[in-house]
């Protein structure tokens, strides 16, 4: 009889522990830089719709990294217990759902706000401030804040993507997407402020609406994917709501290995669990990794294969195999 791991992290290969640690460090930096951006942008925000949109997006951008850090801590520290017999591997999925809802809600709210400002033809005032004895148009400080806000998400987002791939972590991937949205927001924001400076009163709201639409689109995509996980849907891809490529390959491999049986796959956090309905397990010890159809170093993705015998038959001992 195998000894069950005490925490979810212990069930993952050693190399992933280091990757997870690197991702956590990166997210700590992400939170730090995001806070500096939020403070700087907040100081120079003024009445600009674009700045308001970008500031709220940057503030909400804290949700995915904080959710990731909480989930990673639970994976590392949360022990299997009588109250939580399956551990905390789905905390990551819950964090992913929260981040997705926050993203979509922000996008919808800001799109509404920008549309209303455009319809009402409100002219945004960007006033001046006195710094070192000189009167400076606040727009220049806003542009400086936007340029500053471009840099951290551009670098951190690019560093997150390979880690998210390696960890099969949708929450981390959503954060990378959020970072992409943030630097795009910065770029659109600069255009909006320059447009406002040129006397195009609508430029600010149009830029804000474009940014909001992009946030809303990303939010909906993430909601589709995260709810699929929460309702035991088939594993979804990292960057889309379609079924993941490795899950499709696993389904095909198990269907071929157990003809006539029904194969069901679901995802718990970064792991895949398979159920083979309508057949008994093959005799002898069964290692889930031997069923993984793709490269062996990703075999940890398949955590468990369960067998459900045909109706009317009682299950035999050892019909559930943990990876």
């Amino acid at each position: 009889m195998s000894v069950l791991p005490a925490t979810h992290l212990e069930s993952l290969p050693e190399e992933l522990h280091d990757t997870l640690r690197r991702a956590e460090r990166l997210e700590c930096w992400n939170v730090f830089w995001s806070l500096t951006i939020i403070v700087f942008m907040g100081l120079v925000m003024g009445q600009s719709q674009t700045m308001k949109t970008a500031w709220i997006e940057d503030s909400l951008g804290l949700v995915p990294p904080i959710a990731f850090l909480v989930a990673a801590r639970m994976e590392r520290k949360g022990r299997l217990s009588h109250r939580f017999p399956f551990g905390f591997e789905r905390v990551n999925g819950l964090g992913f759902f929260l981040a997705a809802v926050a993203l979509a809600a922000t996008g919808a709210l800001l799109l509404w706000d920008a549309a209303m400002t455009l319809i009402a033809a409100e002219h945004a005032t960007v006033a001046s401030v006195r710094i070192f004895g000189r009167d400076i148009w606040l727009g220049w400080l806003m542009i400086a804040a936007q340029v500053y806000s471009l840099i951290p998400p551009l670098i951190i987002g690019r560093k997150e993507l390979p880690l998210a791939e390696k960890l099969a972590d949708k929450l981390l991937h959503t954060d990378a997407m959020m970072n992409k949205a943030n630097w795009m927001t910065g770029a659109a924001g600069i255009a909006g402020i320059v447009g406002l400076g040129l006397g195009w009163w609508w430029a600010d709201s149009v830029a804000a609406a474009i940014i909001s639409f992009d946030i809303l689109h990303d939010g909906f995509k993430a909601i589709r994917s995260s709810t699929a996980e929460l309702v035991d849907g088939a594993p979804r891809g990292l960057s889309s709501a379609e079924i993941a490529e490795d899950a499709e390959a696993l389904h095909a491999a198990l269907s071929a290995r157990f003809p006539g049986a029904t194969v069901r796959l679901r995802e718990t956090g970064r792991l895949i669990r398979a159920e083979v309905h309508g057949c008994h397990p093959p005799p002898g010890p069964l290692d889930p990794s031997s069923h993984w159809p793709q490269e062996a170093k990703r075999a940890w993705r398949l955590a468990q294969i369960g067998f459900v015998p045909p109706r009317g038959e009682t299950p035999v001992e050892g019909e559930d195999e943990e990876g």
Partner: protein
Amino acid sequence: MRARCVALALVGLLAACDSLPRDPEHTLEDVRARHAIRVGEVLSETQAMPVEAGRLLRGLEAATGATAEITRGPMEPLLQKLDSGKLDLVIAPFAKDTPWVALASLGPVLRTEGSGEERIEWRAAMRNGENRWIMLVESRSRQAAREEGTR
């Protein structure tokens, strides 16, 4: 070659610094072309217009080459005229948490009277979004308030 390109880009940027912001409804250009600043002053039986307001108007006249034309009346009609572009500026006493801030852009405080909940701030109000004009009025308002402070 690269240094020359950077220098040219910097010169371009500095030129742009000077030309931004612009007014969507061309308030400052119109003031200069018309040689008149259409000013609204709020009528008050108890409060006289502060000296800082006069100093602000003189500063604006010097900066634009225009003459201030004063219209006196109650607050709301004046702010409505400001919003529709029939006035360029309204000088009035505002409460600290005034609701008029949604209808017009308020400049820096020219003078403060009273204290606590009865505190009143004299300010210039400009049409929303006319950022070049707003910047000029703000700059001259700070100057007018400073000059009074140094006396």
